[in-house]
C-alpha cells in the first residue's frame, strides 16, 4: 500500500479499534458492577444489610476508579445520574429501607446497562 494511503487508513483503523475496544470495555465494566449490585440485591432479600451495603460500596469503589474514563467516553449527564443513584442506594442500605433500596438498585442496574448500550456497536444505535 502506498505511503499516502497508509497514514489515513492507519488513522481510520486506530479510531475503529478504539471505538470497538471502548464498547467492549464499557460492557465488561458495567457487567461487573451490575453483578455486584445483583449480589447486593440478593443480600437485601436475606436481610443481610451490612453485606448489602458492603457490596454496594465495593461496586461504587470500582465505579469511582473509572470516573475519568467514563467522563471521557460517555455523556456526563448519564454518568452523573448513575453517581447519584449509587449515593441514594448507599443511603437506603444504611437506613435498611428494603423496598426503596431494591427499587434504586434496579434503576441503577438499568442505568449501567444503558451506559453500555450507548457504546455498543449495533444497528439500533447506528440508525
Amino acid at each position, binding site marked *: 500500500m*502506498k505511503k*499516502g*494511503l497508509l497514514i*489515513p*487508513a492507519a488513522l*481510520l483503523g486506530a*479510531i475503529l479499534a478504539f471505538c470497538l475496544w471502548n464498547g467492549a470495555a464499557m460492557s465488561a465494566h458495567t457487567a461487573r458492577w451490575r453483578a455486584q449490585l445483583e449480589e447486593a440485591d440478593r443480600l437485601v432479600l436475606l436481610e443481610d444489610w451490612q453485606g448489602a451495603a458492603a457490596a454496594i460500596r465495593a461496586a461504587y469503589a470500582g465505579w469511582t476508579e473509572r470516573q475519568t474514563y467514563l467522563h471521557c*467516553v460517555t455523556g*456526563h*449527564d448519564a454518568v452523573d445520574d448513575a453517581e447519584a443513584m449509587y449515593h441514594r442506594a448507599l443511603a437506603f442500605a444504611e437506613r435498611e429501607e428494603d423496598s426503596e433500596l431494591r427499587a434504586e438498585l434496579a434503576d441503577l442496574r438499568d442505568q449501567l446497562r444503558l451506559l453500555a448500550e450507548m457504546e455498543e456497536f449495533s444497528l439500533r444505535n447506528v440508525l
Partner: protein
Amino acid sequence: MMTAFARTVILYFLIMTGLRLMGKRQIGELEPGELVLTMMISDLATVPMQDFGIPLLAGVIPILTLLALSMLLSQLSLTSLRFRALACGTPSILIREGVLQQEAMRKNRYTLDELLEELRGQGITGVEEVKYAVLENSGHLSVLPWAKSQPPTAEQLGVKTGEDVTLPVVLVNDGRLLRRNLEARGLDEVWLREVLRKEGLSSHREAFLLTVDETGRVVCVRKEGEP
C-alpha cells in the same frame, strides 16, 4: 471556564492541523465536497466547545474520522483516474465553438441565466464570442474566447521584452537572517556583509527586508527607526 478554554485550544489546534493536512486550497477554491467537509468539521468542533456535558472525544473522533476519510479519498483520487472522476466529477463543456450545449447544461442543472451572468462577469456579452466555456469541478466557469477576440501577446506582436520575470528570495526578514535561503542561492555571509555595507548597514538586524533574485538584483529595505 477553564474547561471551555482548554477544549477550545485543543479543538483549534486539531482543526488547524487537519485543515493544513487537507492542502493549500482556499475556501473559495474548494470543491463542493471539501466545502461540506470544512463546514461539518467546524460545526462538530463547536458542540463540545460549548456543551461541557458532552465528552471532548465525541467531537474529536468524528473530526478525526472525517479528516482521515478525506485524506484517504484524496489519495485514492491521485492514484485512480476512475475514482477521481467518480468522487470529484469531470468538467463539462457548456459552450462548444460558440454553440450552447443544452444537454450538458441540463445534466449540470445550469440555467441560461447563470451562464449569461457568468459570461457578463467576464466581460463577454454574447455566447457566439466564446469558443469554449467549461464548467469545472469546483463550480467555476472557465471561459475561453475565440483567438481573434483575445488580446495579442508580446510574442505575437513581435515585441522584444526585457528580462523575464524573476523570483526574488528573501534573505533578511524583519532583521532575521534566513541562512537556508542564502545557501540555496549559493551565497554566503561574506557576500551579504558586502551588500549590507553598500546599503549603509552594519548588520542584517538593521534591514527590514533584503531579497535577491536569479540575476543577482538586490532589494533592501531599511528598518524604520534604525540609524
